């Protein structure tokens, strides 16, 4: 298989303060994860798509797939205890593939074109990142250090990696007992020192995390997806 994809849907709704995980919250008329699935559906050269989510939401996710006639190429499995473990389990479920694309269920405004650029990229490992428009400091209760903003990148998903290299990096992390990587470019770079190309991300590809993001999301949907501001 040339291209596989892992979609991370591990949320449990804690930060949203809602009884259901945020990927199932309705945004612009449908569950947030469905926005993503409908984009991925159009990527016909992604041969298999594995969604990882908490065990208690596997059936609900599977039902969403069935309602949209997606159940063939897409499947849903129980994720891991950490994001890192969920990616690993997703890759195992995908099996042998050349490239693995990783995305999050709660970034609904990714475009088909953004996926295409990654998949068609000549680079094995390629991610999206955007400039950081605000000052970032190191520290918790007190400032411990300053960071040079111009050297930093706000990492966005989706990302594409050479599946063999990423699997090897995950194996190394597991061998060391590390499970604290919150993103895969950092994990791959840490263990493999692989060259990872950074492409300019988009402002609208936001991650729905806090309740305010739902309000912003509705505005983005109206303006960019439907192409109509409120009359």
């Amino acid at each position, binding site marked *: 298989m040339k291209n596989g994809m892992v979609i991370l849907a591990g949320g449990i709704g804690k930060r949203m303060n809602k009884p259901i995980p945020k990927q199932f919250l309705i945004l*612009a*008329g*449908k569950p947030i994860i469905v926005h993503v699935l409908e984009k991925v559906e159009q990527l016909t050269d992604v041969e298999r798509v594995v969604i990882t989510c908490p065990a208690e939401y596997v059936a609900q996710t599977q039902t969403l797939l069935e309602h949209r006639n997606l159940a063939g190429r897409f499947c849903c499995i129980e994720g891991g205890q950490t994001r890192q473990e969920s990616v690993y389990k997703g890759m195992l479920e995908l099996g042998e593939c050349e490239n693995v694309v990783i995305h999050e269920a709660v970034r609904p405004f990714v475009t088909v074109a953004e996926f295409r650029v990654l998949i068609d990229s000549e680079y094995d490992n390629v991610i999206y990142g955007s400039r950081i428009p605000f000052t970032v400091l190191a520290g918790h209760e007190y400032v411990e250090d300053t960071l040079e903003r111009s050297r930093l990148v706000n990492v966005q998903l989706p990302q594409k990696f050479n599946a063999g290299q990423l699997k090897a990096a995950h194996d190394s992390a597991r061998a060391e007992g590390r499970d604290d990587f919150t993103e895969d470019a950092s994990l791959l770079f840490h263990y493999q020192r692989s060259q990872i190309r950074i492409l300019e991300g988009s402002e609208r590809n936001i991650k729905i995390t806090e309740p305010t993001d739902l309000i912003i999301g509705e505005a983005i949907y109206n303006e960019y997806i439907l192409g109509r501001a409120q009359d």
Partner: protein
Amino acid sequence: MKTCIITGASQGIGRAAAVRLSQEPDIQNFVLLARSASGLEGTVAEMNREGKNIKALPTDLSDIDAIEPLIKAVYEEFGSIDLLLNIAGYAEPAALLDTTNDNIRTTYFINVFATVVITRECVKYMRNHPSKILNVASTAGVTPRPGWLAYASSKAAMVSMGETLTQELAEYGIKVYTISPGRCATELRRKLAPEEDPTTIMQPEHVADVIATLIHDDETCLDGQNLVVRQLPAPKK
């Protein structure tokens, strides 16, 4: 070439719409649904059949569980579903205290539940290409009609459904229209107002012309609103 599904196609506005749309060169496949096999045969007989595939399927839409396999079979046979006209309707006017459970059940099953289910099933196959859905509600759905509770409230539900689906399906390029005909010389109207001269009111063909205009590719601006279709009586001299 387009595939068009029409419910309630055995008489009245449904029949007139089928006949009118059979003149459209870009609609090749027609699926006509209604309970009455003989009524459907009559519709087919009036349609332009040249170069058209017309499938008349006697169907009881109140059996909503049968809709999913029906629509799947249509898609598998024709390869696309492009137009859905929800025209089937049921009316049994009665005052609240005379409205039986059977009346409210049948009215809602035909006018609301079947419309939701057939729309849901069609959208599964429509959502990857520009398509159109048109629902026939009624002026009874937007004005108070004492003595018509079940029918009027079910038509109000159709108006609401159209407004919601217009927004929900916009991303897929699916346009949703709702029209609310006023007095129209259908078999149903004849039953409800037997004393009325049907030649003095709007004809089903007038409504069919409006439907043809709306579902034409050139129409791009009118979805989302409930369009009242009525013919004012000729001025008295």
